[in-house]
């Protein structure tokens, strides 16, 4: 059956330009190891270097100021950045280490920090203010003599919230140039106009499958002047920054997707804005009591985070799936059972409210028919779950579900 992807923040799906990649012949670059001396290796090498250049260009970073290191995805990029800031073995001079991040980061930032905490380091996670915004002052207040890393995501994957990273990093850099500044730009890249060069970041993480390339590939941009260090050791690929034979096909798609992105970022944002506005408007007619929390703050153009009114029972995501529209709720979990969103909890929503959260996120390139198809599918889903009581009286009571 036909399927429409309204879950772009989980996986964009391949953009058209990348699909073209799969007519691959046996002598094509992705079939070879870039470290090989022969023509095949040279082709593979040329392929990944072209991708590197395309990516740097798309993110508008200067090779003289930043280096681009390919990884197996943003989780590795994030793990790398935190490990880098922790310091190499030779640097165990300081007796204590402190890290600052936010309570709404992706687990690939929170987990390594939790691990550092278990090993004896200190971690401060900044919570949002009551209105959901992040205050620069809180980060400054949290700074300590032994702080070595501040990691703040540019945009949140669940809520779409855009965090004031340029302001935070500028404030910290001017006071404490010694602190390693890292931003997880996974969701922001391609969905937000950002001057990455002016962020004052020491490391920036991006991901392939969030911009329409293959999953399992990403990159971390690191300030060029910083000394070499690697999390993954071995054959010294990526100029000793990250060993392991490069995922040539993945990297190739990353470059292709980045190039396509750069060529069309303006129109993409407009398209995302339009589909989001349309779907949000429709949602409000389908579920009058819906709270679209992504409207409450500066958020990515493509993301709707909504909390459904109490009393809507049922499995909205499963039901939507059966109708052919793909959406999310909470955070995905590998066993298939959703967990309560730590992001929503950090923002002050209750576990119960978090259990009623939906994330609907968009690509930039739907056919008009697809948008209509998706909207109608959602309409069928909500019609099933809304009892007459809620529709007419707007009750949000516990017992308003017919069954």
């Amino acid at each position: 059956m036909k399927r429409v992807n309204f879950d772009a923040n989980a996986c964009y799906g391949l953009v058209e330009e990348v699909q073209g990649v799969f007519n691959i012949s046996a002598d094509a670059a992705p079939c070879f190891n870039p470290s090989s001396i022969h023509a095949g290796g040279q082709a593979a090498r040329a392929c990944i270097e072209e991708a590197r250049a395309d990516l740097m260009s798309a993110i508008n970073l200067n090779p003289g100021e930043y280096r681009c290191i390919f990884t197996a995805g943003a989780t590795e990029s994030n793990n790398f950045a935190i490990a880098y800031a922790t310091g190499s073995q030779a640097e165990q001079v300081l007796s204590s280490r402190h890290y600052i991040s936010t309570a709404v980061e992706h687990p690939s930032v929170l987990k390594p920090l939790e691990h550092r905490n278990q090993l004896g380091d200190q971690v401060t996670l900044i919570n949002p203010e009551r209105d959901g915004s992040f205050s620069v002052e809180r980060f400054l207040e949290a700074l300590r003599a032994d702080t070595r890393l501040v990691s703040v995501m540019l945009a949140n994957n669940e809520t779409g919230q855009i965090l004031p990273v340029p302001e935070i990093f500028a404030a910290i850099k001017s006071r404490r140039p010694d602190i390693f500044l890292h931003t997880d730009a996974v969701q922001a890249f391609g969905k937000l106009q950002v001057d990455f060069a002016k962020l004052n970041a020491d490391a920036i993480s991006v991901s392939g499958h969030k911009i329409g390339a293959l999953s399992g590939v990403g990159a971390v941009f690191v300030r060029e002047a910083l000394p070499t260090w690697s999390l993954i050791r071995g054959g010294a690929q990526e100029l000793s920054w990250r060993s392991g034979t490069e995922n040539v096909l993945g990297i190739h798609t990353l470059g292709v997707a980045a190039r396509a992105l750069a060529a069309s970022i303006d129109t993409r944002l407009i398209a995302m804005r339009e589909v989001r506005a349309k779907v949000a408007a429709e949602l409000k007619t389908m579920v009058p009591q819906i709270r679209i929390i992504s409207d409450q703050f500066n958020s990515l153009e493509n993301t709707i985070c909504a909390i459904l009114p109490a009393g809507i029972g049922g499995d909205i995501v499963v039901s939507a799936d059966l109708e052919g529209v793909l959406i999310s709720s909470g955070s995905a979990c590998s066993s298939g059972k959703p967990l309560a969103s730590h992001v929503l909890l950090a923002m002050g929503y209750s576990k119960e409210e978090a259990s009623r959260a939906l994330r609907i996120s968009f690509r930039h390139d739907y056919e008009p028919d697809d948008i209509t198809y998706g909207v109608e599918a959602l309409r069928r889903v909500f019609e099933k779950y809304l009892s007459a009581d809620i529709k007419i009286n707007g009750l949000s009571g516990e017992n308003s579900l017919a069954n």
Partner: protein
Amino acid sequence: MQTDHDRIVVAMSGGVDSSVAALLLQQQGANILGVSMQVWDYRKNGGCDSRATCCSPDDFTDARKVAAKIGIPYYVFDLEEYFKEEVIDRFVETYRQGLTPNPCVDCNNRVKFRELRKRSDSLGCSAVATGHYARITCDDSGYHLLRGLDRSKDQSYFLYGLAQAELPRTVFPLGELTKPEVREIARGFGLATANKAESQDICFVSGSVSDFLVQLGGRMSAGDIVRSSGEKVGEHDGLHGFTVGQRRGLNVGGNSEPLYVLELDTAKNRVVIGSRAELEIEGFKVSEVNWIAPECIEAIQREGQVKLRCLAQLRHRHAGVPVDMHWTASNGVAKVSFVEEHSTVSPGQAAVFYDLDGTEVLGGGRIEAQALRA
């Protein structure tokens, strides 16, 4: 087999029975979804100690593989809260009361065929299917719940809680098959679970029940073992280790005749034991009775009672004995007397009434603690 439903949810445990149930329905052209119920969080209970990573039970992986092979959608439903309240808490509380719990019955009654059904309904699924060995038939008088054809695998005993109204919306694809036939079907289709060993124990207890109960905060304390006269003859280290009718593990040596557990005295934390003769009772009472068979439901409507001779099955592997059963709507309790032998019962266990053929489930309930003594 009813496949005239718009869409059916098949409860998939990852075992061969539910796998084949799904396969058969799909082969018959039914529109089905596979659903696994997450009822127990292995993370919180000694599985993984990491908070945000999940232990994907291997069973879910198996169920998922089977669903993918059959070509049906597969989801995991979180039913932990319900399971905890309706099954686990009851399990612990039942032991505390000195009774023998029946968690599989509670799971069926309260989780699978209530909560799962509710969620399935909301997805537009008109029936729930499982891999239970049991049959549902239909005639002019209504729907009937029958034993599975494979008597040695029959699980109708655990299904006595089904309401008559639910039967048209419940599907048991395996009821006419034997276990070897089911495995053969699985093998024939190349299902990974064809040769998977059956789970024997309670699904949420790995290790001993005693350890489990202690872990959940029940410190079952040691006490005396006494004869019905009150004379102390030994000691025990927790009532939960005993079931009425039990003969082994009493550790009271020096008797010419075998001794059995007569009663679990929770008030005084004593195990009361006695001879076979003392153990035998003429009858017992059954409460929380659910009636399924149309003839019984009609009798209730006509006379407010069900009074008949039938076969009572008193535990899972029990052939069933003839009894005279009299249930009244006014107090909801059935008085049951043995027709032939004077037999033992385990309070807390399910007593399920079958017709004299032993084929159709008339109804069933929970054996009460007070036995009728001669």
